[in-house]
């Protein structure tokens, strides 16, 4: 009898009810040639044993909380309010499924309606969906939507300053979709080069801002360069939306990315949460689930999944996306965090992250040529690139000093300038910044 299988003691009664002698008789439809013997796995473990085994595995990791950490590059270390996990741990939220029966799922539905609203407010776009997997797949969905809207065109203009994982994912999907990627290089200022961009044959122009170097892109310039192609802004550091004007303000067609920075733990890369916001005219081509407002039979306001005819379970081969299960619980988590931070907190958090990054930048400028800023004149939000010929060795040395100083760009992609990407957030104290600067002075 296993503790997760309450029916084991009832087997005999069920077999009698079914008029069978053994469970094996229920499996007669499965031919013998397909059968396997005992699984080559250990036997069932007590909870305490599982705790010990996985606990030991967990201890074999160094965490970003054990020492000052300046890692970013797509996963950002921001405050995680205690209330977030308290809400997420409510069984009514995490053990429920997709709200297919809305009458018993108003908790999930209302929370996601709130998430959609938050995404609209942060991006200044009119509509947003109920979440996607992550920023990379959200970028892909934006491009695929653009391709559906402009079926006579095949080209995608995409900045090479996107997070390399997003760019790589786009390359994978584009091949299957018959799209041709034209990758735009960055200039000396670390921003995407827009001169000479020819948007006439393109379905979309995609930039990330802040980009992989942490540099703030010229969004009005990008929109102008996009012409008739869909202008897409990808956001990797979501808290930047607390301080930086979003694509929605400049007429972008899609603002998408990952909301991880708003309180989701790093969790070795996932699960985080993709978001997708767009214009009303593209509504029917939008991927992902949508929660809409309606009333019930008593006239009471309520929420329900709507416009499902775009989705795979109805539209099948002609669906706007193949997505079914999304990242709903993580969207709930972000909704909780944003509700706690509120108007003032979102701004304060972004200001603090930016202020601390600028402070650290200032300290590091004193290192001069030993560890120069890649783009010293450019605006960054909370992340910047410092050039160094052997970044992995440098980081290893700093780790020995007890500091996780950043991400070595060769770890991300070989086409990025060699160096370390340093991200600073409200969680880094002034003392930690001073310590990093001092350590660098020592080792360089």
């Amino acid at each position: 009898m296993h503790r997760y299988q309450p029916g084991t003691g009832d087997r005999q009664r069920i077999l009698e009810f079914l008029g069978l002698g053994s469970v094996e008789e229920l499996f007669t439809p499965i031919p013998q040639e397909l059968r396997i013997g005992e699984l080559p796995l250990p036997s069932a473990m007590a909870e305490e044993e599982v705790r010990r085994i996985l606990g030991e595995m967990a201890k074999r990791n160094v965490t970003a909380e054990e020492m000052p950490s300046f890692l970013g590059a797509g996963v950002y270390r921001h405050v995680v309010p205690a209330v977030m996990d308290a809400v997420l741990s409510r069984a009514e939220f995490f053990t429920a499924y997709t709200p297919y029966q809305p009458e018993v799922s108003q908790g999930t539905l209302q929370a996601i309606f709130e998430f959609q609203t938050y995404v609209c407010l942060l991006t200044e776009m009119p509509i947003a969906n109920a979440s996607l997997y992550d920023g990379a797949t959200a970028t892909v969905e934006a491009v695929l939507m653009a391709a559906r809207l402009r079926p006579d065109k095949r080209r995608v203009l995409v900045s090479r300053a996107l997070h390399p994982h997003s760019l790589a994912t786009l390359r994978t999907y584009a091949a299957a979709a018959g799209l041709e990627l034209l990758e735009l290089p960055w200039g000396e200022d670390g921003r995407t080069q827009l001169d000479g961009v020819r948007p006439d044959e393109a379905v979309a122009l995609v930039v990330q801002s802040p980009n992989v170097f942490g540099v703030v892109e010229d969004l009005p310039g990008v929109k102008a360069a996009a012409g008739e192609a869909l202008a897409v802004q990808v956001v990797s550091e979501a808290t930047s939306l607390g301080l930086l004007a979003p694509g929605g303000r400049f007429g972008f067609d899609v603002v998408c990315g990952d909301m991880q920075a708003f309180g989701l733990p790093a969790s070795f890369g996932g699960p985080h949460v993709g978001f997708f916001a767009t214009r009303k005219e593209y509504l029917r081509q939008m991927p992902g689930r949508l929660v809409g407002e309606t009333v019930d039979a008593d006239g009471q306001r309520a929420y329900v999944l709507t416009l499902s005819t775009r989705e795979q379970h109805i539209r099948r081969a002609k669906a706007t996306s193949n997505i079914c299960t999304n990242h709903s619980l993580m969207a709930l988590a972000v909704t909780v965090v944003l509700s706690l931070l509120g108007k003032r907190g979102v701004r304060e958090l972004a200001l603090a992250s930016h202020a601390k990054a600028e402070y650290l930048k200032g300290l590091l400028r004193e290192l001069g040529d030993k560890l120069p800023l890649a783009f010293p004149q450019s605006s960054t939000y909370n992340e910047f690139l410092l050039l160094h010929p052997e970044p992995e060795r440098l980081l290893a040395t700093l780790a020995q000093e007890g500091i996780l100083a950043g991400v070595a760009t060769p770890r991300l992609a070989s086409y990025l300038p060699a160096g370390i990407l340093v991200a600073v957030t409200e969680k880094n104290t002034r003392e930690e910044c001073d310590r990093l600067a001092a350590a660098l002075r020592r080792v360089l």
Partner: protein
Amino acid sequence: MKARTLRQREKLVFERSKPGAVGYQLPKLDVPLPDLQATLPPTGVREEVAGLPELSEVDVVRHFHRLSQWNYSVDEGLYPLGSCTMKYNPRINEELARLPGFAQVHPLQPEEQVQGALQLMWELEQALLAITGMARVTLQPAAGAHGELTGMLMIRKALQERGEARRTVLIPDSAHGTNPASAVFAGFTVKELASTSAGTLDLAALERELASGDVAALMITVPNTLGVFEPEIRRAADLLHEKGAFLYMDGANLNAFVGIASPGKMGADALHINLHKTFSTPHGGGGPGAGPVAVSSRLEPYLPVPVVEKRDGKFFLDENRPSSIGRVRSFYGNFGMLVRAMAYILSLGRDGLRAMAEAAVLNANYLRKALSPYYHLAYESPTLHEVVFDDAWQKSAGVNNMDIAKRLLDYGFHAPTVSFPLVVHGALMVEPTDSESLEELEAFVQAMAAIAQEAKENPELLKTAPHTTPVRRLDEVRAARRLVLRYEPQSSGE
């Protein structure tokens, strides 16, 4: 589940906003505030984000607490959604996923700092290989559909490397909608195969289609969405392989035969596994899940990068795979869900996993027999872990499957899947899973029997159901005709 008092009819968080309320406090800023005009581009700065609410921590806690009270969940009771496998989500999994050593690890830390995380991924892959009898697993896909797309992209690459431009993917009409959608997104065209009258794959039709030479793959769910095991699956695999095509297996129904049969022996070339179904990771109100894809050696070269490898007792991420399809997402996978699945597999072990499939099949067959007097069984074929009824006997009273589902909510159960698979008109797809006791199943049968009786004596009651849930039946037509997809200060009415 009904709102106990009017005060619990909870407004939107934006409507609860009070100017000046503070929900979270950051530590005081310990560095100077820069001059934003100097550090940021002139057009780049925004003021406070308009429309964000202001609430105290207490208000936020109460808001989400009240919302949660409006949800039915697995922890409350039976959740018999067919093909979703709504089983118990063990609490130890939640504790372990939250261990700082897992939750606070950054994916781009140097490999020597994350050996524990890489080890977990490696061990999970080994366990999934033991269970499926396949050659390798990618843990990258975030969901089943994502896995399907990944598998189909690998098949596409394999054909490309062979120099073959096969365009067609065959999919049975009983398939889940993600199958054709994924195939199309992978660049194929879909041809639907009609099922036999027994609800299974039509082997003769498959053979006919294969003659064209344009078939890249067959996508099939085993057992299928009717709960029926495909008796000819091995033969189908052989036919496909003889003609140079591939077998993609949708693993959504794996719960029916873990520890008893293996997709490897069935001849699958690629198979996605829904960790949030078979392996107990929570559904979270719609996700996140995880959809690892197991492949045969035929497709191994095309796995997405990176792949976790082990050498000299150390684990590393291998990006050097020349035939790989590339990346299908950022980083390495929904690691938090991988931890949970690993904990589950360890908790169950070899005997517990087999018992899981046996319990799933026993429970479903119990319901099949117990409900048969009251509801029309869609297919006579033997079924494994799920069974499909339809509303044929209730239709004459003007009651349909949706009405039955809504009335079931009044009895305190979540409804089965309705209106899927498409091959059954008025379907009710029931999957109890392995984590239900006979007591819970008997209560469900009683409720369904009562509803069948009500359908005869008082059909109006069903047509206007539900009556006791927090909200009554929703006007879904209005939701689609008058689209309100976000809160706007003027538009949302009470």
